[in-house]
């Protein structure tokens, strides 16, 4: 029995999706207009494309500098998170029958319940005392704080990998490190994708941690720049929206190409 397309539901879903798309359309429309056109109507389709809003926004916010900061922080966070968190999880997962390792597992994972605000005030003092109130410190904090969630995700996955694979490698004379890098790490690719996607989204879009940790305005990330330049944008909404769009564009472009993959990865991380 083959079902026919359910048109009433299709129409409802299509209408609902307008609620997502209209604010984004408005953003693009405002970014492409000049103040006069915006005053006439924000919703109308932009007739003349004022690309100069974008060039001006690049100048005013020093976009490329912020973009570079965000990209560096995201990439280093991603690389260090994948390499270190999977390694820690492997050490934990293969020794869960030992008390010390099991307790460490619960120690890392229980941090998921600790709200950031209780750490926020002391960590600001601590990072500035250690000279870590810069991108290096921020990357370190992302890698360390990510462990709570990532170890939970990795350990579940590693424990499902049959240990016989490792024993064969050990018989062949592989050290424990060799076993991890040559046997286990390649097998982690699907779950690395999940952790990688979640880490990128977090590091790229996060606002609170850069806000409290970074002390030098030259280090500001893209979301932080949007906040810092609010007063400078003033009533020039065209400029502001051009700047917002540019800050969101890299993730949206990646999403357009890897949409299936990203959704799949995020779901896997949540269900585990």
């Amino acid at each position, binding site marked *: *029995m083959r079902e*026919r*397309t*359910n048109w009433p*539901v299709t129409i*409802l*879903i299509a209408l*609902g*999706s307008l*609620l*997502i*798309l209209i*604010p984004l359309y*408005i953003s693009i429309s405002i970014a492409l207009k000049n103040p006069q056109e915006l005053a006439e109507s*924000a919703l109308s389709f932009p007739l003349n494309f004022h690309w100069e809003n974008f060039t001006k926004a690049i100048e005013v916010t020093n976009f490329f500098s912020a973009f570079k900061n965000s990209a560096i922080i995201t990439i280093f966070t991603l690389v260090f998170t994948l390499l270190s968190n999977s*390694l*820690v999880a492997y050490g*934990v997962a293969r020794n869960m029958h030992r008390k010390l390792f099991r307790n*460490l597992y619960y120690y*890392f994972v229980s*941090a998921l319940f*600790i*709200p*950031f*605000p*209780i*750490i*926020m*005030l*002391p*960590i*600001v003092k*601590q990072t500035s005392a250690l000279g870590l109130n810069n991108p290096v410190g921020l990357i*370190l904090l992302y890698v360390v*704080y990510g462990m*709570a969630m990532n170890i939970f995700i990795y350990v579940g996955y590693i424990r499902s990998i049959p240990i016989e694979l490792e024993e064969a490698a050990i018989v062949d004379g592989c050290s424990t490190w060799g076993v*991890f890098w040559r046997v286990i790490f390649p097998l982690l690719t699907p779950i690395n994708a999940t952790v990688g996607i979640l880490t990128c*989204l977090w590091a790229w*879009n996060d*606002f*609170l941690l850069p806000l*409290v940790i970074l002390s030098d305005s030259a280090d500001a990330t*893209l*979301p932080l720049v*949007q*906040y810092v330049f*609010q007063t400078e944008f003033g009533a020039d909404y065209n400029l*502001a*929206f051009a700047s*917002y769009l540019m*800050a*969101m564009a890299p993730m*949206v472009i990646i*999403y357009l190409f890897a*949409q299936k993959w*990203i*959704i799949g990865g*995020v779901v896997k991380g*949540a*269900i585990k």
Partner: protein
Amino acid sequence: MKSDQLILNNPQSSPADSAKSKKKKMNERMTAYYLMVIPAAVLFFAFHTFPAIQGIYYSFTNWNGMNLDYDFVGLKNYINLFKDTSVRDSYIFTFKFAIFAGILVNIISLAIAIGLNAKIKGRNFFRAVYFLPNILSVLIVGFIFNYVFTNIIPNLGEKYHIEFLTKNILGNADFAWIGILIVFVWQSCAFNIILYLSGLQTVPNELYEASGLDGANRWQQFWKITFPVIAPFFTINMVLAMKNSLMVFDQIVAMTGGGPGTATTSISYLIYTGGLAGGEFAFQSANGVIYFIVIMIISVFQLKVLQKREMDM
């Protein structure tokens, strides 16, 4: 030392010299495992646990965050917390917000997920559209909606003479929280829709066909077949939505700055402004401790209650 003991416990019945080399190998492996785990645990303690302990420590002092010296004041900060109206208001706002957000996000997400799971045209396209808000910066989405609420909606209200739309909702102390709620729901649904959808896809189709033959209607099918299967997803989504909404921060920075007055000051926003700029470092540390305890209680309670319900079904 620990590894030695474990090896002794290991029932190995091989000759003595081979056992010796095995023991050496085992020691090497355990050393490697310790080297993998211990540095991470130290870092985690230094940058997560230690600050948390410091927060608790400072909550018993009167430090303003800048002076070199401070005194111990015992429980004074905690006693003052319960008397402080701005703290009380922030808890009322945050909980009102979290309860509405938790309910709305779950109802809307489930409804949309059921729609996406039906036999519709362009399912993959719509799935991608509904997930899109999840990849956008919360702060920037807040800025965009700030403009929508302050300019676009009042303009539409004037154009079509709809009285209640002409005022900026974010400028109204009684309704500003609804504006923040709308933005929060708009963005949070993305993730929960996808989760519910993957839950719905685990419901076997045969169940629907069988119950259809038995004469069950749609509503009965939902409560008797669909809901029990997706109950675990309901638990995850409820906990996630509540946790995120109790932490609401970015939207408030982008849309109201806690105002008008203190009408939309959430707990985390109060800790940030009071603790870092307002010279209330110790006082807001105490607030953070209470906040932590509250979140712990809610999380445990939610998991217990919701899991029990899953079992009952």
